[in-house]
């Protein structure tokens, strides 16, 4: 298939395959018993960009939290390259630098310079000395086109730049998987489209598995190899779509025929869930 990472220059990635098997998450099992994730099954190949699409508050983030190790699952199993991260017996995985999260509102430490933020991971893990880590951080930032802001604090640069720095900070640890939780939600759509290209550029260089949560169908189809459209609460895949637009992609894809066909194909499924969530949201309000 033309959309597979195997076609990319530099050989196929071999690590970072995630398997989600029958995962169930129930909040407050004794009392209110809200089911957030319902028997969710999903296979993500090594080096694949997998987009998770669903209305806000549908339980996508719960899934991400389970992989990252912030929350426990109720039952099921999640494996990374065959190794069990969490299962019914051991419901909570340990957060680690092989699965780094980029947060919705950004979590660059405002009290550290951008450079020190990027260098943070290896220093904490004791992998590199402070000087070495900084050196590596500088060159990684330069590669990502981020020179000129190293000695500024995150609060001094625009939000688009902050997001790119955060992704570089994650990649500093040479992770198997990048977990992105609606990272561009707060950006305006033009900046967003530039950010998408920047993300792809970084991806082509590193080919790390990407687990990307979004509620924007266009974003999902533009970036992903695979798009999983989730149902509104409780969350489970409603439709899994393989995007057969060849990589590398640029913004021209957005107006291509195939792209529009894919949007058309999936629009209805997404719209249906959106209306469902919209209405239940109104009721809650």
């Amino acid at each position, binding site marked *: 298939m033309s959309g597979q990472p195997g076609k990319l220059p530099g050989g196929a990635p071999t690590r970072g395959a995630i398997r989600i098997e029958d995962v169930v998450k129930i909040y407050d099992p004794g009392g209110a018993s809200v089911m957030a994730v319902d028997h969710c099954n999903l296979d993500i190949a090594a080096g694949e960009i997998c987009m998770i699409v669903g*209305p*806000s508050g549908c339980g996508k983030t719960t899934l991400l939290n389970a992989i990252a190790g912030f929350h426990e699952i109720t039952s099921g199993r999640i494996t990374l390259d065959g190794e069990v991260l969490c299962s019914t017996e051991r419901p909570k995985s340990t957060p680690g630098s092989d699965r780094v999260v980029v947060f919705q509102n950004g979590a660059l430490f405002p009290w550290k310079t951008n450079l020190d933020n990027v260098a943070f991971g290896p220093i904490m893990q004791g992998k590199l000395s402070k000087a070495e880590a900084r050196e590596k951080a500088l060159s990684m930032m330069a590669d990502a*086109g*981020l*020179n*000129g*802001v190293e000695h*500024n604090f995150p609060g*001094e*640069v*625009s939000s*688009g*730049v902050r997001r790119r720095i955060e992704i570089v900070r994650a990649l500093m640890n040479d992770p198997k998987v990048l977990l992105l939780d609606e990272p561009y*939600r*707060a*950006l*305006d*759509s*033009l*900046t967003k*489209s*530039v950010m998408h290209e920047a993300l792809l550029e970084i991806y082509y260089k590193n080919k790390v598995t990407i687990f990307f949560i*979004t*509620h*924007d*169908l*266009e*974003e999902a189809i533009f970036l992903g190899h695979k798009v999983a459209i989730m149902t509104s609460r409780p969350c489970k895949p409603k439709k899994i779509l393989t995007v057969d637009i060849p990589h590398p992609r640029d*913004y021209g894809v*957005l*107006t291509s025929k195939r792209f*529009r066909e894919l*949007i*058309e194909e999936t*629009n209805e499924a*997404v*719209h249906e*869930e*959106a*209306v469902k*969530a*919209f209405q239940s*949201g*109104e009721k*809650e*309000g």
Partner: protein
Amino acid sequence: MTDNHVPRPVVASGEIAVRGVSKSYGEAHLSREVVKDCDFTIERGKLTVMIGPSGCGKSTLIRLLAGFEFPDRGQILLDGQPIKGPSRDRLVVFQESALFPWMTTWENILYGPRARGELNAQALEFAEFLLNKVGLREFRHKYPTQLSGGMQRRAELARAMINNPQIMILDEPFRGLDAMTKELMWEYYANLYEESGRTNFFVTTDIDEAVFLADRLLIMTNIPTQVRAVIEVDVPRPRRLADMVTSDRANAVKMEALAILHEEAMKSFSRGSKAAADFVEAYARRSAKA
């Protein structure tokens, strides 16, 4: 409910001409020109959409159009008369909700008539009509914080429309809503516009939103803001989202606009340090407060 039930004056006028407008902010040698020799017309009864990279000075233009600030050079004319200050003729709907948090939905909608001392039976009837129209009947006694994002925006549209402005100016009104709610809001808003036929000026950074809504599209350059291109979107109304996705004309417009915008966005992006635009935005916010 149809229009003949409502006591609603017909809007007939409202054309804005922006002629050679420039505006700068900042002190002494740190000053920056945000808007430069801007020239365009917002035609009567049409929905004009302005799109440009974020922080390019679109909000400055809105403050100038609304009359909160005045241009350093050039003129802004409303039906041939220069703009002298804020007025109910040109109503602004803000980016993110500016509903008064201390008033319920109902009080918010009635704010305009009450402030002008025009709170009569007719106004109440119109408010009731609008409340139904935006589907917030059951939420009239709720405070804004109790409404979802989409409902807040609808309440805000109702609060604006009760004043029967000649021109509605909307500054990225759907920013921050999630993509799905946003799409529902577009159809909703387009519907309101098509019914009223009044002049609308809509500012956005979202290309899909722009193409879907616009009669005429103004594409702006990066800071300092100028009009880079004008595209007439001659897709027939009423428009539906599903149709727009398949419309070749809409797609052609999108492609054309995207090419220009991408170039502009890249320009602002290539500078790593806090963009000049951010500085100006921040400065404007600060000076507006002081």
